[in-house]
């Protein structure tokens, strides 16, 4: 029996599946699929649709630089983690932001067109936030897997094209 969860699984696998594709793969009709997707979007379960991009494979002169940044913060009675997160998440340069356990408090990913741009962003916009006590920046040198997808997983289909 099909369920909205099945639609989510399929869209997570490939957000470009059309309503028609989803209806073919499940027991829902096309209009039921549309309704389910709308409901999931309105409920904030589906928050957006993005391509998983391997920037390294883009053969252009332009450079795309990403860094993960460890942040330590100091809280006071008027400021909690959510307040700090709200402030940091507003920057378009920040592509992900997570509160984590361990040696530091926040883990964020920053993107820019050059190392200089990313460095300036951290030093000019993030580090000066009063609650932030420390930043440690790690530039991403190579990406092998993003959002569950391996960029070169050597999975070329070398099966016999016709077999018993």
């Amino acid at each position, binding site marked *: 029996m099909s369920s909205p969860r099945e639609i989510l699984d399929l869209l997570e696998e490939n957000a470009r*599946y059309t309503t028609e594709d989803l209806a*073919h*793969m499940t027991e829902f009709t096309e209009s039921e699929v549309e309704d389910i997707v709308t409901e999931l979007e309105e409920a904030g379960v589906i928050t957006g649709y993005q391509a998983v991009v391997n920037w390294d494979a883009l053969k252009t002169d332009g450079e795309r630089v990403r860094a993960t940044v460890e942040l330590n913060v100091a809280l006071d009675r008027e400021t909690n983690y959510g307040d700090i997160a709200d402030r940091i998440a507003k920057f378009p340069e920040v592509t992900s932001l997570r509160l984590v356990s361990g040696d530091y408090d926040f883990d964020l990913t920053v993107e820019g067109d050059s190392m200089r741009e990313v460095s300036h962003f951290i030093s000019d916009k993030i580090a000066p936030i009063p609650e932030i006590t420390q930043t440690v920046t790690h530039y991403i040198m190579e990406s092998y897997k993003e959002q569950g997808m391996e960029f070169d997983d050597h*999975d070329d*289909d070398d*099966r*016999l*094209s016709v*077999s018993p």
Partner: protein
Amino acid sequence: MTLEPADRVDAVPPSGIRRFFELAEEMDDIISLGVGEPDFSAPWAAREAAITSLERGQTSYTANKGKRELRERISRFESAQHDLDYDPDEEMVVTAGASEGLDLAFRALLNPGDKLAVAQPCYVSYVPGATFASVDVVDVPTRVEDEFKLTREVLEQSGAAEADALVYCYPNNPTGATMTGDELREVAAFCREHDLAVFADEIYADLTYEHDHTSIATLPGMRERTIVFNGFSKAFAMTGFRLGYAMGPEDAITAMNRIHQYTMLSAPTTAQHAAIEALDSCLDEVQEMTAQYDRRRNYVLSRFEDMGISCFPASGAFYAFPECPWDDADEFAEALLQEEKVAVVPGTAFGEGGDGHLRVSYATGLDDLKTAMNRIESFIS
């Protein structure tokens, strides 16, 4: 003497699949729905176990019947999964794929001139395997109107009552048909009445979508006359490991092992290590792969329905078996390959009962499946 093929080898024609394989191999960029194996790689934990076993230098023969540790795991798995209870010491042999197990059974348990009833359409190796064992074949063509299931009627009409053994595969390659416990009862009663042994190829047992698999060996009076074959190729996506097993009464397994110990000696050792790990920790992956096959099955069946092509509603394995829109399925498959670069296999390659159908494997990613179905739609319109 010259090195001419023996008569029993000469008697076996080239596989019906062979021609399509050769055609497809000459072409670039084809999408193949002609494959009879999973597109998934074996679960990583199983591959890792294989690597580790090699690093440890575990490269010698194992016991003829397979590592005891593996046989114990298989015994527990079959008991939990299919309600089958076999003694790992006396009633089981680990083989190089389920295919080797079937070959052993044909040669060890049938005499030259005995008759083997073969439920068709079927896996392409049964009939040649019988010929190599100098066994006569009784064709038992199942019918689309019976949902490609074995029934008492088709068994009687085909003359299977005169046979010494029956071989079948459910869930079925190439039709995707399955049989319920109640339907198997009828077959079991027939085999008991006419004293047929049963070779039950259950390699797709864990790839069912509508109901759980039932083994005929669990039915009253059947365990003592049945050999069950299974393996790691399909559900665990471990085709290249070449690992299967056969389970049955002690005397029969001993006889099969007598050939196995002189020909194969033991199944591949590295594969046995991988299989132990697969049974220990990869059942979730089997479930996930099955869920994906189910989505693809729905997709393919739904697309054929939209095209107005009648397609048998497969409930197991990973094959759809639509009716061919042309009179000649061989011609259709060849033209589809040449013009649209989509490979499917005509049902005739799988013996009687397959005529007029195509085998369409959905062991292919959904994106390719979608492109292939679009091409088929454009080809027939």
